[in-house]
């Protein structure tokens, strides 16, 4: 199976501006491989290094050491991002635009011809169930609708790899279910999806494999069913065990 996303001994340190403060290690020797066609869940508590990993993959943060590759190309080269789609966590898109205009703007960036862009915009608005709201300004959208516009923009270039940073964060159960359905549909279309999440239930439902990181270090990697079988427990318990959570005993 060919590898679409790879990190090798990835280390990221953030230097502090304050006097005598030591550098904060956000990632420490992270090794990951994601295969073509996989839905890969990237789990960890807040501050574990999930978003930092994604920021390195997208070229926003340079690694202190180690390397990261997309499609075999070093992520420091912009061409590595030609065939990816990215949905950041909680983004408030240009509120003076409509969803249709927003998608047209991103389509222009990819140099899509007008007819092709029109076709894709129609298809994507249908996919994210915004066809009736597509001509309304984004400022009138609910949080769930904004997140779905975000998914549509991530798909405008028909990417082979989707990187989603907590795609269901802050959504109500219905919104979460809709996003989950979209991920499932993308998986059926053969897309590779790499997503970070706190929602263990949805990870269990849609992911082929997961990685669990804590304090910048990879703690577990494998198929959800294998991890569950290994720990003889559900994914939530597996996750809590792996990150070393100790429940406080009640008197």
């Amino acid at each position, binding site marked *: 199976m060919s590898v679409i996303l790879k990190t090798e001994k990835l280390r990221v340190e953030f230097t502090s501006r304050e006097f005598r403060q030591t550098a904060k290690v956000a990632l420490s020797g992270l090794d990951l491989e994601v295969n073509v066609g996989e839905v890969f869940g990237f789990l960890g508590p807040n501050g574990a290094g999930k978003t930092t990993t994604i920021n390195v993959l997208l070229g*926003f943060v340079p690694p202190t050491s180690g390397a990261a590759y997309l499609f075999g190309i070093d992520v420091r080269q*912009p061409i590595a991002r030609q065939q990816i789609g*990215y949905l950041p966590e*909680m983004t408030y898109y240009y509120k003076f635009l409509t969803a249709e205009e927003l998608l047209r703007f991103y389509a222009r960036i990819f140099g899509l011809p007008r007819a092709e862009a029109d076709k894709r915009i129609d298809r994507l608005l249908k996919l994210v169930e915004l066809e009736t709201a597509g001509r309304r300004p984004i400022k009138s959208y609910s949080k769930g609708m904004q997140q779905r516009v975000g998914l549509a923009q991530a798909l405008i270039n028909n990417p082979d790899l989707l990187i989603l940073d907590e795609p269901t964060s802050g959504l109500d159960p219905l919104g979460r279910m809709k996003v989950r359905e979209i991920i499932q549909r993308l998986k059926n279309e053969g897309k590779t999806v790499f997503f970070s999440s706190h929602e263990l239930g949805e990870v269990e439902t849609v992911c082929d494999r997961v990685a669990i990181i804590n304090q910048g270090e990879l703690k577990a990697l494998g198929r959800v069913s294998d991890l569950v079988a290994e720990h003889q427990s559900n994914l939530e318990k597996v996750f809590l065990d792996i990150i070393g959570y100790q429940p406080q005993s009640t008197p």
Partner: protein
Amino acid sequence: MNTIWALAGIVIKELYRRKDFYVLFVLTALITIATGMVNFFHDPKIVRYVKDICMLLIWISALLIAIVTTARQIPAERESRTIFPLLAKPVSRWQVILGKFLGCWLATGIALLVFYAFFAIITGSREQNWPWLSYLQAAGLQWAMLAVVIALSLFVSIVSAAPSSTTTICFIVVAGILLVGGHLNSVALNQAEPVQTILYTIYFLIPHLEWFDIRDRLVYDWAHLVPWRDCLLAALYAAAYTGLFLLLTWLGFRRKSLNT
């Protein structure tokens, strides 16, 4: 170039969907029309006062539009986090800067066109005279000057923390240059060292925005146009400063953390 135009298009859309421009235009129009209706001292040349006030309002409005629109561009992208999906696409940071600059400059140009059309209608209807070439030169030079102001505002917006502080800093700098920049050499002449050297250095370093101000020619109906060669030199002068400020913006932005 496609990316830069796409980014510029968004800025232009933002300008005409926000209320800033319309408010400024309506204010300019109301004040000018009100001034035109009052006949101070039964002066037969009252139209000069109207022209003077209208041109002053156009200059203030254009500066307001240019600085306020530019100051919020990159901070807003970072605050709303739209910079992330944008840079996750094959878009480089220098393209973002050029796109934002072009958008702000074109948007201000469109606003300027509307203002000058209003000025032409008001003064033309009073004087029955339409010196189109003078209007073209005045608007063109003002637009060239605004390119420097926009590039400067973009640079300050990278360095400064919030759009409000960028706006304040830019207004102080631009107003300072327009009001006293041209007199700094005369002031320096009567100063002792090291103040003299400091003032001369500032005089030779700052972009002389006041050189682009030919309002008096329109207000007092100077017969001759500015030589076109001088207009070209002024445009090149503005282009040099614009390029310098854009380069400084890129140097500041290329390694800047994207988180607010």
